[in-house]
């Protein structure tokens, strides 16, 4: 018994939600494809409920029935009043599709009710056995009334009515439910758009029909600084606190704070990039103009040159300067060097190097 009452309440809640979302109407009568399965479930529930109802105690049944009727009545009374038919929105009005009259095999009663639903009604009335026809007709009449009502409501733009909602709420609250309330809410309101407003729905005025735009028109007399600042602003508008370490590194890279990928250890050494590798390594040509061909001075200078060629910390200019310093040094000490025989006395033979 408790379950049956709960079922009644569930029905009421469903009906209530329909009021708001116009879904039940479609669940019951219209949506074939989407909710066909659900409908079947629903109709099964209805059947179960009807079965139980037969075993109900008189009083409870009457109460529940009275409330259901009251609710359905209040729904039908108020909808026509509450929703004025004038609507400024021509688009939201769906075309009332002429339903192809599908002949239902056993009962070609009407076309407004889903075949599954009709089947369910049939089953119920079979169960009742007595006054089979009467109960069937009354059930169908009820369903039809609901269907009509929801159809009418569906075509009106939806406006929630606080007063009515309150009434329904209070009505619902007076019902006593022994078991748990249903845990699932009704399915999400699907206000399926009838006709989607297309952004290209209008006729163009033809203002551009004869236009001939210059190719580089945007570049002509452009505001360079203005555009740069706008771009900057645009970039800042989508620069948000970094969401991970990589994004942070991207920011740092753009600010020039970290090495760029792929790693290049000569990055940013633009001046050095002008100088070739060979100029760093092959320094002997710089000795050629002045250094004696053999002897301790030559030996020493060769060692200096080898050392310099391996030194990565000096620029080529610095290396040349280094070599030139030794040249000047040996030039200054020239007489001593000749005396000690470190360089051959070449006044006679005229060495090309140091004298020049």
């Amino acid at each position, binding site marked *: 018994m408790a379950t049956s009452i709960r079922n009644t309440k569930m029905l009421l809640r469903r009906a209530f939600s329909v009021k708001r979302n116009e879904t039940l109407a479609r669940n019951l009568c219209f949506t074939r494809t989407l909710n066909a399965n659900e409908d079947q479930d629903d109709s099964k529930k209805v059947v179960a409920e009807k079965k139980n109802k037969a075993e109900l105690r008189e009083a409870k049944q009457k109460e529940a029935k009275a409330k259901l009727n009251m609710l359905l009545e209040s729904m039908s009374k108020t909808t026509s009043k509450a929703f004025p038919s004038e*609507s400024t*929105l021509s*688009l*939201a009005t769906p075309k009332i599709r002429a339903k192809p009259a599908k002949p239902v095999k056993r009962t070609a009663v009407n076309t407004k009710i889903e075949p599954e639903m009709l089947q369910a009604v049939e089953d119920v009335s079979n169960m009742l056995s007595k006054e089979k026809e009467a109960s069937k007709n009354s059930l169908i009449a009820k369903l039809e009334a609901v269907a009509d009502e929801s159809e009418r409501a569906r075509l009106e*733009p939806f406006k929630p009515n606080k007063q009515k909602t309150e009434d329904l709420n209070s009505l619902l609250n007076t019902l006593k439910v022994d078991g*748990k*309330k*249903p*845990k*699932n*809410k009704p399915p*999400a*309101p699907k*206000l399926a*758009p009838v006709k*989607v*407003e297309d*952004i*290209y*729905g*209008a006729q*163009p*005025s*033809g*203002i*551009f*029909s*004869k*236009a*001939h*735009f*210059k190719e580089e*028109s*945007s570049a*002509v*007399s*452009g*505001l*360079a*600084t*203005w*555009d*740069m*600042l706008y771009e900057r602003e*645009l970039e800042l*508008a*989508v*620069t*948000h*606190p*970094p*969401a991970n370490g*990589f*994004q942070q590194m*991207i920011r740092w*890279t753009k*600010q*020039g704070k970290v090495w760029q*990928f792929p790693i290049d250890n000569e990055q*940013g050494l633009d001046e050095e990039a002008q100088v070739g590798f060979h100029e760093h390594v092959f320094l002997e040509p710089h000795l050629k103009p002045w250094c004696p061909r053999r002897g301790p001075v030559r030996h020493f200078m060769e060692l200096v040159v080898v050392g310099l060629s391996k030194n990565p910390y000096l620029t080529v200019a610095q290396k040349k300067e280094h070599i030139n310093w030794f040249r000047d040094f040996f030039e200054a000490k020239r007489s001593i060097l000749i005396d000690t025989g470190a360089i051959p006395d070449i006044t006679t033979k005229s060495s090309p190097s140091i004298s020049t």
Partner: protein
Amino acid sequence: MMSYPNLNALVWQHLFRNARRLQSVWKSGRPIVPNGNSFSTEAKEIAIPNYIPRGPTDILEALASTVKRDPTAPHYKFHDDPYLIPASNHAKRSYALAQEAGRKAANWIKQEHAELFQHRNAEPFIEAFSPAEKLAETTPMTEDLLKKYIHTSQVANAIHVYGKLDASALSPETRQSFLEFVAFYNEEDQLNEDFIEERWFKSGMKGKDQIRQTWKNNGLAETVFNSMERKTPEAYCALICGMARHGKAVGAWEYYNQMLAEGFTPNLTTYNSIFKIAGIVREDAEHQIILIDETLRSMVHAGIQPNVRTLNSILESISRIPIYRVAREKSLQVLSDFKTIGVKPSLGSYYFLLKIFCREKGPINNILVGIVNRLEYEMPPLQDLHDVAFFAEAMRVCNYHLEDVQLAKRLHDLLCLPQNQTLIGDSYKESIYYRCFLLLLTRAEGPEALMEMYRHLVPNIYTPEQNVFEAVVKSIAECSAVQYVPELWSDAVYMDMGERESILEVLLEALASGSGPDPKTVSDKDDVDPVLATARAIIAHVDNFLKVAEEKDRTTSLRWTGSMLGNLAKVFLQYGDVASANGIMIKVNTLKNQLSSFFPVATLNKFYESCIERQDSAMALMAIAYAVEMGYDESSSMAKQAREQLKLDERQQQKLNSILGSTSTTSEES
């Protein structure tokens, strides 16, 4: 050239003796044993892909795209320390800004003690780490310095340098550049680019609707303009754009006419600015539309091709037309017109379309459905500053206008794409977006679906505001999904909302909406039902909070109310926790008149019945006392029941009489 690929293959074979095998490995990813005779015929060509030049951040961007947003972790900016993970909006904001404050302090020190940061041992030298040069009296003021400041958007410094320089000695290009610069920023110094958090939390200024006049009248921009001997069209353009940008529509309009009178042709940016102010210089809709059409015609005449920002400026102007029908028709016509010249709308255009079509109190329009269809097909690139306002507005429309949860979910899926995540705007727009989303879900979804999304968003992506959280709890209560309430309660505590009276009210309402323990589930004896545990935790939390507040002499707005205690008592009775229920009744009796609402009579009755059942006369008397004091009608019947069914000793009898006082005597007599 034809045989080039074959040649390639031949070289390959030549180079490697077992070229066949290598090749098959290379092609298929696994070794294939070659059969002898197919050797020469199957020499496939090797196509070496073209070299793709990569930028310095490309690798990082590819890596970053592999990191998905993790809803279970706090945002990257917060410290990875459980103690420092913020949950409430207030904490999030203050933690992020605190970090930024540290960054600012470091910047300040670097600036104030510049002499300490002069070492240059990094090679190449990193400009960003060196202190900015301070402008002193001795600093030589040059044109290059001015250019540098313009380029790095340092407004105050640029203005300072300009003041020191001889304006007439500057090159015309620099003067023009400076004019544009001053007009763009309206002489206001800009927030340093480094302070990313501050910009994030600065409430949404860019998408604001009202044009406020912020233009500095007779300011530097106009002075620079007037000082030019020969007024170039560019100078006019810069001034007009600046005035339009900063809300001085009339001034911009005047200079525009002046410019036309001089015979100059405005450029594209200037036309766009004029469209933007069309609604202000022309009062009624009809003239505004005429002005727009005229301006468009003159653009066509000058051969200037409009771009997407032109479209957005026109739509922005139309969105201010109060008459729905006119605005709607004109905007659709403009869109179709722009389609003929191949200008595709950006997100900003859609934003204005929503403003035009989905007005408050206006008729319901589902244009957003079409827009989302388009966006799912192709996402336009970022082109306009208004683009970032789209998602918040669209979600607002989903929630308040269409009430369409499916559409909202599609929109959310769009935003969740990695390349679109930056389009949310700022923290303000983000909170609008998620607020609308969650509010819509509370109305449309069942508890399971709602909680699934709730768990995904809260608390790391979004912290609900008080009213949103209340809506979630109410929605849960409506379905009696009491199993989620413990989780919500712990979230409320976590998000600093456990001390708010309205939150406690709805939470307890939800907690009491259940129907007691599930008899089917057999639980351990030591196992406390989570609902019961939550009820106990709430009592302890509130009591503790009140105690601390009292001890520290803090004023608090939190008070126990009758309905809160009623719901708690209901839960305890449901779960058979008599001791706690008694505790509640004692609390009710001590607080009595301090309670802002009444202890509900239904729960009182239930409690009373349970007292009778277990013959607890002391508690029963307490319940009667409360009923009498509150003037409940039930008090007399309760007293009667007490006399009949309870074994009262003499003192209790006396007490009962004294409680009932005159009321009972009269009722007994009658």
